[in-house]
């Protein structure tokens, strides 16, 4: 499952997914992926803390467009990665 999260309303994300459900069956392939886009990029650390079992990624173009620092701490991905992620992690849910 891939969640494209574009909002700053973290409660909305919490109402959709619980951290316990982010890693089903202990199978790493079943991990939920949360991709922060748009306004959500400012909250990627809070989101990572909120969902430690999920894989939390950030869209590189948006992150750089905002002028935020490219540190090792943040996992930035390109559009081509987003395409692959979408294929490998259906359903894709945009929130």
């Amino acid at each position, binding site marked *: 499952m891939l969640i494209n999260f574009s909002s700053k309303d973290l409660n909305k994300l*919490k*109402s959709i997914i619980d951290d316990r459900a982010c890693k089903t069956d202990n199978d790493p392939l079943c991990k939920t992926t949360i991709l922060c886009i748009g306004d959500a990029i400012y909250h990627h650390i809070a989101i990572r803390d909120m969902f430690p079992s999920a894989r939390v990624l950030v869209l590189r173009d948006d992150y750089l467009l905002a002028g935020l620092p490219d540190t090792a701490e943040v996992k930035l991905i390109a559009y081509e990665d987003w395409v692959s992620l979408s294929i490998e992690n259906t*359903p894709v849910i*945009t*929130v």
Partner: protein
Amino acid sequence: MISGKILILSTHAPYFSNFAQDAIEAALGASNTGLSVSFVLLHDGAYQLASNADSGKQKRKSIYKQLKAFELYDIEALYVVTPTDDNTLVSDIIESQTIAEVIPQSTLEALMRDSVHVLTF
């Protein structure tokens, strides 16, 4: 994974924006095409279940009545997710309604994982 199914998530309060109406029209459109539709009210979407909304007097098309009519349009299931925070306002609305099946968040997650297509409004 089963095809021919769609999950629609409605996350906004009614009347103050177009999202609740957009979600309903998408559900009807999907059902018309023969897709099996599961419709889930969550987050602020639960407020759509307030049955005594003053929509008639204010000349607004009733969201509640449209949700209530879902069964006439072969919409498979109407759910509302139990709120995760203690919000007495929304809890009261959910308790006093009878048109949506109340499900825990874990069921929503199962619904999402079983879906091929999901739209969120």
